[in-house]
C-alpha cells in the first residue's frame, strides 16, 4: 500500500478523535492545507507519523491546544484588497444608510484585521454609532488576538497604503497607538463590536444581518461545508441584504446560487435576490 494512502487513513482517524474528544469537526475542511498543517505539527513535535499524534490528542489537552493554535494562524491585512473596501464604502454604505440600525457579521473573523477595517470605514461615514458588528470565529486563540487588536508595527506601512487605496478620508495614524514593536487599535473603535465564538461547522443563525463579510473562509472548506455555511448566510440576511466573499470565492456552484444576485462581480459582492 502506498504511503500517502496510509497517511490519508491516519488523518481520518485523527479528525474522528478530535471530534470525539473535543467536539471540533474538521472532517469537511479542505484536506490539502489541513494535511500540511498536520505534517508541520508532526515535524515541530518530532513525531514520525500521524498515528503518533492520536494518543496525544486523546490524552493531552495541551497538545490539542497546540494543534488548535496551528489551525488559527492565517494571514490577512487591514483593508486586504483595498478595492473591495472602496466598493463597500462607495456603494454598499449608500444602501445601509437607509436603515436606522445596522447589523454586520464578520463570519470567521480570524485575528480581526478586517473587522477593524470595517469599523474605521463606518466611523468615517458616520455609521458606526448605529451599527453592531458581530465578529465571530470558532477559534478562541484567534478571537483573543482579535479582541486585543494589537498588531505588529512593521505592518503599519502596508495597512496605511491599503487604507488610502480603500478611500480613507482621515489619517490612518488616528486609529492606532504605536508602542514599541506593536500598534494597538483605538478603543473607541471596539465599542460597537461584539466578539463571540461561533462555529460555522455546527452553529446556527443568531441574528438578522444587513451585511455579512466572509472573506477567505470558504477556501478552507469542502463543497458540502461551503453549502452549509452559505445556507446559514442566506437565512441570516434580511431582504436585499449583502454578502461579501473573498476575491477567489464565488457562488457559482453553490446551493444558494439562485437566492443571490451578483452586485459587484470583481469585488465578490452578492445581494439577496427579490423574493418571487
Amino acid at each position, binding site marked *: 500500500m502506498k504511503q500517502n494512502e496510509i497517511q490519508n487513513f491516519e488523518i481520518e482517524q485523527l479528525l474522528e478523535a478530535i471530534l470525539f474528544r473535543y467536539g471540533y469537526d474538521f472532517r469537511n475542511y479542505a484536506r490539502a492545507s489541513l494535511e500540511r498543517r498536520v505534517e508541520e505539527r508532526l515535524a515541530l513535535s518530532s513525531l514520525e507519523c500521524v498515528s503518533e499524534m492520536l494518543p496525544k490528542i486523546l490524552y493531552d489537552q495541551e497538545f490539542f491546544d497546540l494543534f488548535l493554535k496551528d489551525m488559527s494562524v492565517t494571514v490577512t491585512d487591514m483593508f486586504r*484588497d483595498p478595492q473591495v473596501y472602496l466598493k463597500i464604502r462607495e456603494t454598499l454604505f449608500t444602501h445601509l444608510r437607509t436603515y436606522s440600525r445596522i447589523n454586520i457579521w464578520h463570519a470567521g473573523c480570524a485575528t480581526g484585521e478586517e473587522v477593524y477595517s470595517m469599523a474605521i470605514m463606518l466611523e468615517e461615514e458616520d455609521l458606526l454609532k448605529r451599527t453592531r458588528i458581530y465578529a465571530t470565529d470558532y477559534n478562541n486563540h484567534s478571537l483573543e488576538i482579535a479582541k486585543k487588536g494589537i498588531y505588529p508595527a512593521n505592518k503599519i506601512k502596508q495597512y496605511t497604503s491599503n487604507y488610502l487605496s480603500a478611500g480613507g478620508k482621515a489619517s490612518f495614524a488616528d486609529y492606532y497607538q504605536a508602542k514599541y514593536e506593536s500598534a494597538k487599535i483605538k478603543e473607541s473603535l471596539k465599542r460597537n463590536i461584539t466578539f463571540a465564538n461561533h462555529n460555522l461547522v455546527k452553529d446556527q443563525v443568531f441574528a438578522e444581518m444587513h451585511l455579512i463579510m466572509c472573506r477567505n473562509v470558504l477556501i478552507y472548506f469542502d463543497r458540502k461545508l461551503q453549502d452549509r455555511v452559505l445556507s446559514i448566510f442566506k437565512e441570516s440576511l434580511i431582504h436585499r441584504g449583502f454578502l461579501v466573499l473573498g476575491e477567489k470565492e464565488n457562488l457559482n456552484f453553490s446551493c444558494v446560487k439562485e437566492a443571490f444576485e451578483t452586485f459587484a462581480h470583481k469585488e465578490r459582492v452578492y445581494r439577496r435576490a427579490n423574493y418571487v
Partner: protein
Amino acid sequence: MYEAIGIGVSAGGINALKHIIPILPHDYPLAVIVIQHRIHTAEDFLVEFLNNHSAIRVKEAQLGEVIKPGCVYIGPSGYHLLIERNKTFSLSIDPPVNYVMPSVDVLFESAALAYQDKFIGLIMTGANHDGSKGLAKVKKYGGMAIVQDPATAEVAVMPQAAIDIVKVDYIIPLHEMGIFFKNLKFIGET
C-alpha cells in the same frame, strides 16, 4: 505517463516562462501548473500576457477547479495554491512559506501526495530557496525532479538550492527547456 508538471519561478520568471509556455501545443497531453512569486495586486497581467503568446490555453487556477491536460494554470497572487487528492485546486492564506505566498513548496508538497509518480517538478530562476523541499517530496513519492541549469538562470540561487538538496533527474539549460517539455511524452513512455 506523467499527468502534470509544476513549475516554480521567482525573480526573472517571466522571461523564463516565455521559453517554455509559448512552445507547448494547444493539445499538450499534460496539465502545467505555474507558481510565479509576485506581490498581491488586484490587476495581475501574468495570465493575460502568457495566454496572448501561447497556443496552449493559459488561465488562473480557480478554487475547486478540476485539473485537466492541455491547460496551463497560474497560481493567483496572494494565495497558496494546493492540489487535493481528487486533482482539484484549493487555495489558502496560510502564512508565507520561505517568506513567499504563493509558495512553490506548498504546491509541490501537495502535488506529490495527489499525483505521486505522475508529477514532474521544475525549479527555475529565483533569488530564494523556495521549492527545494517541495521538489524533494516530489522525488520521495516517485515523481520526476528537473532544475534549470543555474548558469542559464537570471538568478541562480533558487535552482542551485534545489540541486544542492535534491537528487534531480535532469538539469536543463534555458534554451533547451521548451523543446524538452514539448517532447516529454517520449520520456514518459517506459
